[in-house]
């Protein structure tokens, strides 16, 4: 469903691109891991497929439309959901309001449906006692689960995550990765996770390594 076409990106120096000539395809119902050392350009790549920046070279296609055609704001609103390492929830809201806000902005099918939001939060282990509390009172693992719930309650068929387990302990990491697997397999979405942890990557259906400006799939 998502394709890159000769994708290339550099910051200041065109002769020193982070990656170039990238042709990858990401399918619905599958999870993908992108591995690589720090500073190789994983986050930069993710920001491009998340519609937060424009490619310097090549193109990204959703179906047969390029992101340029769709419009980045429109693309972000309807087609992609993002999970960050630092959770990035609305700090002044409860888990419930975080979900309701995201659903309202993305014009989701279930916008305004509190019962639906509650169901998703409960599924992810956010109990009724936490649902209406300020998110700042939640632990890191709980906050990341709220962030994942936020992507689940919206209709975007592409979910991208940048080091989603970077701040989590072993147990929480496992729970979060399991959840991403469910999103891919049960909700039939396309999940792309950037990580530098091979253990996390191993759980995904496909693994790519970014090295020497190229993506190579690991067997």
């Amino acid at each position: 469903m998502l394709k890159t076409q000769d994708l290339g990106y550099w910051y200041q120096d065109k002769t020193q691109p982070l990656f170039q000539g990238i042709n990858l395809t990401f399918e619905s119902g599958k999870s993908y891991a992108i591995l690589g050392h720090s500073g190789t350009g994983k986050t930069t790549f993710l920001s491009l497929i998340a519609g937060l920046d424009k490619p310097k070279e090549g193109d990204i296609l959703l179906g047969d439309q390029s992101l340029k055609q769709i419009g980045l704001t429109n693309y972000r609103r309807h087609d992609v959901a993002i999970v960050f390492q630092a959770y990035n929830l609305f700090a002044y809201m409860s888990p419930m309001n975080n979900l309701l806000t995201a659903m309202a902005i993305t014009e989701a099918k279930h916008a305004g449906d509190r019962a639906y939001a509650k169901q998703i939060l409960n599924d992810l282990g956010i109990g009724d006692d936490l649902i209406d509390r300020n998110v700042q009172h939640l632990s890191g693992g709980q906050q990341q689960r709220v962030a994942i719930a936020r992507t689940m309650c919206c209709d975007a068929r592409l979910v991208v995550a940048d080091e989603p387990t970077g701040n989590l302990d072993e147990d929480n990491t496992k729970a979060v990765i399991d959840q991403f697997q469910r999103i891919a397999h049960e909700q039939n979405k396309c999940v792309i996770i950037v990580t530098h942890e091979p253990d996390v990557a191993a759980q995904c259906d496909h693994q790519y390594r970014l090295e020497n400006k190229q993506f190579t799939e690991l067997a």
Partner: protein
Amino acid sequence: MNFFKRAWLNIWAKKGRSILLILVSSAILMFVLAGLLIRSAAVKATETAKNDAGATMTLSANRQAAFKKMSQSSSSSSSKTSRPKLTLTPVKLSDATKIAKLSNIKNYNVTSSTSANAKSYDTVSTTTGMGGNSGGPGGMKSSTSSGDTQIDGVTATSLTTTFSDSQSKITKGRGITASDKNTNNVVIEKELASQNNLTVGDTMTFKETSGDKNTVKVKIVGIYKASSTSSASAGPMSTDPSNTIYASYTLANTIKGSKYAGTADSVTFNVTNPAKVSATKKAGNKLISSKYSLSTDDASYQSVKASMDNVEGFANKIVWLVAIAGTIILALIVILMIRERRFEIGVLLSLGEARWKIVAQFFTEMLMVIVVAIAIAGAGGKFVGNQLGSQLVSQSTTTQTTTSTTSGQPGGGQPGGTKGSGGPGNMQATSTKTKDPNLEIAVSAVDLAELGGFGLAITFLSIMIASGGILRLEPKKVLFS
């Protein structure tokens, strides 16, 4: 309108910050309101000043024309040995009635002054050594031979500036009124009364100085007290001010002689709207011949107006300075707020929120703050306005009084000639302190509406200034740090 809900959630969740913002905004708006209040009070006070300070227009003989005529006749008939005579035509009361019908005229006072010699009483002699009984001020005093008692004929004492300015006050009985026309009722000075054991209801007599030198019997209907300042300013040549008797102008005319019936030395018109006094003068001049002239005196109105203009201008400056400073302060606060909340803005953008809706959220938040601040400022602004207002008025009236005393003097430089050319009150009116303009500070609906307008404008502008931060923000930089 999801941004509206977000704004509310944010204001509610960060109560401490919201309260701080409300306090800062209230302080700014309180100063804006104080300025607005002082300004509107100044406008109102200027309106009131029209009635209180007032302005007058005086109809009298045209001295310039008379002088011109005198010099012409002296050059053309130089063969004649007789000295040229300055003839001042007395004002005709029929002219006065015509002028009084002009729209801006409130009422008018006829002044006709003369003098007589005491018969049944003794005049008060001045403590400075001038003998009251010794024939009075001498030849310079009047064109007619003068007596020791000054008789000021008026329509009503309350219409003279001397009484309306409270330089002289009725202490017993009543003043002369329009109903005293054609009567021999008089009002005498307290000192003269006590020296001669006279009181209200008594009669007294004096003798005319010219013609048949008839004895005139008058009835005392009131006693007045002249202020000490008026005796000091009366000049060396006049009699003691206590020897001034107020009567109806008809009595003064009778004493002067039969040909003075239906005339006056001068007629002073009180105008309704001092701002239009010159237009009224123009209209009045069309009604009279060139033998007469109309002069206007709106000095007291002008000085009140000037001081109120000062206050108003100052208030305007306060309003704008505070509004501008407030906008800058609020804009800085919002800029800092936006910086602090750039992660939130980044997440909103990553969810595909439109930038203008994020700006709208911040605007709504500030709007909620400013609405509460307007209410607080409305309650507190009256207090600040009162403090500032009284300070301003006391300052401006001090300066105004000094200028009016110095500028008022040249008008009084006519010791000789008929006293009618301005009346005794008129000359003093310019040199006296006008009433303290009182600034009535009250918060009206209009003030609150204007305050609301300023509040909205300040909020809107500060958000506009600060929104550059939102519009330029790159979510990628913020989100992956």
